[in-house]
């Protein structure tokens, strides 16, 4: 959850509960409702690592609340997260998170993210093309694995196109 909170804080400083609400609002049912304790634990770790800092804000007839904001180091870490190509499983994957959160960060717009990811997928596909050409016909299990990976990639690319039509 670390980069997700960083992205929300790139938009504006917030306290823990506001971050919980922002996650829920931004993702709707696409994100399991985050537990407030978990958010505070994560914020504590981010603070310890120097990625966010907190200021105490006084409130009339209530205990002070801690408002968190992004440090330069936090922004740098967020930039790295947004810009590196995304590996890993699909569905609500890292790329999906970047795509939803990108407009808040001001680092990259969705069109740029989608375009970069599309070329990344095609370069993976190009590896698979090479692999397919080099794999002997007798190695049938490997061929199936490669074709499976290709079909997944093709589906990912089609989904990117849907995202582009819908979000851009």
């Amino acid at each position, binding site marked *: 959850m670390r980069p997700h909170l960083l992205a929300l804080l790139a938009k504006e400083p917030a306290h823990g509960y506001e971050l919980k609400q922002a996650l829920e609002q931004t993702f709707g049912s696409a994100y399991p409702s985050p537990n407030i304790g978990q958010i505070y634990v994560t914020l504590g770790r981010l603070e310890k690592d120097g990625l966010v800092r907190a200021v105490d804000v006084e409130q009339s007839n209530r205990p002070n609340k801690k408002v968190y904001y992004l440090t330069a180091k936090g922004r740098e870490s967020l930039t790295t997260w947004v810009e590196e190509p995304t590996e890993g499983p699909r569905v609500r994957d890292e790329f999906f998170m970047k795509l939803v959160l990108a407009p808040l960060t001001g680092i990259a717009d969705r069109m740029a993210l989608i375009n970069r990811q599309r*070329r990344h997928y095609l*370069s993976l*596909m*190009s*590896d*698979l093309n*090479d692999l397919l050409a080099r794999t002997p016909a007798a190695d049938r299990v490997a061929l199936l694995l490669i074709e499976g990976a290709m079909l997944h990639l093709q589906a990912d690319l089609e989904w990117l*196109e849907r995202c582009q039509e819908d979000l*851009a």
Partner: protein
Amino acid sequence: MSVIKAVNLVKIYSGGAVPVPAVRGVDLQVEPGEFVAIMGPSGSGKSTLVHMLGGLDARTSGEIWLDDKRVDTLSESAWALLRRKKIGFVFQFFNLVANMTVADNVELPALLAGASPREARERRQNLLGALNLSERADAAPGQLSGGEQQRVALARALANQPSVLLADEPTGNLDSRNTRDVLRLLTEVHKDGQTIIMVTHDARVAALADRLVSLFDGAIVDDGRIARRRTGTAGEVIDLR
């Protein structure tokens, strides 16, 4: 020197009730031997763009250059002449000559471009062989499946060894085995220096390209290289993902 160059190319279809801007100011330059894939959602202007590049559809404004000669100002007959020599075109909805055999469909463009009958025949035999169509050489296009017709259209477009191959969804009707034949042929001609501009939704085909151009709403929104990355065994390459 580029093989093909478009400068601020615009196409507005104005036949209907409201004008449709299909291509809005495209700049594109393709170097000799480059393989460019064009992708984009349905209606984003991909067919319109390649039709204009091949002189099959008149531009509304902008310039087209082929082998460093300005061609958008040519008459229709001058275009037709140029196309014979320099351009191979595969249509999204393949149009083969219905009353000619497959073999003649493929030989004709080579002959029109000035090849001798013997050269044209050899080239036809090679191309049909590569696409696993030798046995269908004497059939009429109407007797072929969609996928077979599509492969004949590709063979025909390559028959005159064009400066540039323009292809619009050349694998749209192919099953995976036929796609593999097409992939192999494209890889081969590309290795031999064939310049290719290809519209495709098929990621396997697009991944053969050196460069990807993404169209959206008639404009280029991305234009960059497709990185060649690592090699290894299936387990390694796929596990790393």
